């Protein structure tokens, strides 16, 4: 799957401007990615990629890069 699909989920779920440097995002690095938005992001990721994250993974998902690794462990690989 193209990495742009993952970027699009972040932009939509967090309500970010389309030109945001999504690859550099970390939790709370922008005002839009707060704890409430984090749960919306998780819900969006789970529906979009049809998977279920463990609570530990929800807590560990602290950046775009880490998200990519966690989803890879669920069999979702993204090409640059």
């Amino acid at each position, binding site marked *: 799957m193209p990495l742009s699909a993952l970027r699009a989920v972040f932009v939509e779920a967090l309500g970010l401007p389309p030109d945001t440097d999504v690859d550099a995002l970390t939790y709370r690095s922008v005002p839009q990615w707060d704890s*409430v938005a984090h749960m919306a992001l*998780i*819900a969006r990721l*789970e529906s979009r990629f*049809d998977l*279920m994250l463990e609570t530990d993974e929800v807590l560990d998902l602290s950046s775009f890069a880490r998200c990519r690794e966690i989803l890879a462990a669920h069999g979702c690989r993204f090409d640059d």
Partner: protein
Amino acid sequence: MTEAPVALVTGASRGIGLATARLLATRGYHLVLTGRTLSPALQAACDELTTPGLSPPLPLAVDLGEPSQIAAAFRALFSAHRRLDVLVNNAGELHEALIGMSPPGTIERMFAVNAAGSLHMLQGASRLMMRRQQGSIVNLGSVVAVQGSSGQIAYAASKAAVHGMTLAAARELGPRGIRVNAVAPGVVETELIADFGPERREALRRAASLGRLVRAEEVAAAIAFLAGPESSAITGQILGVDAGLVIPSP
């Protein structure tokens, strides 16, 4: 994804949970039914509630005192249905003991099952419900959470925790389209109170304004109301189903 709404009822092998599962089956829900183990009673409930046109109820063994079993149950539910619309957070245990005679293990077990177990269930359910921005959670509180009961300190405290989590979750999950309510049954004629002798039952009957105990089906009716669309504007409420054991002052 499953088309019809999906309801998860914990502790559905008997008592209030079974009565609720029976009622929800008549309202077109796909059922996921749990017990501590895959007991013959749980299997019988699934067989009884197999409805034409719907997938047969999915039985799952979940000891609420074991968080890893709760996580596994949500994985199984997700792979079967990929959605959850209703959680009836019903399973619970009662071990009575006077304050000075409550063993540490019993106190911890009451909190692990009734409080932490219910909270883990609520957590898992709300995560699945958030995807579709809708859902209804009904917790099982108790009259003893508000008025206490001699010999039930750990149980009463664990049920007070259920009332508290109902209110907190209703506030946090409302903006996500998820309603959270509880019923607070009085004394319901199920196996949970099998140890209550005739004199105690008579005293409890007399204490209730309606002069009687409560039937599991009566609690199930209140649960089904709070679970379903008829209560779409109701959240954060704890509904007494107690034959008038508690009449709150204004």
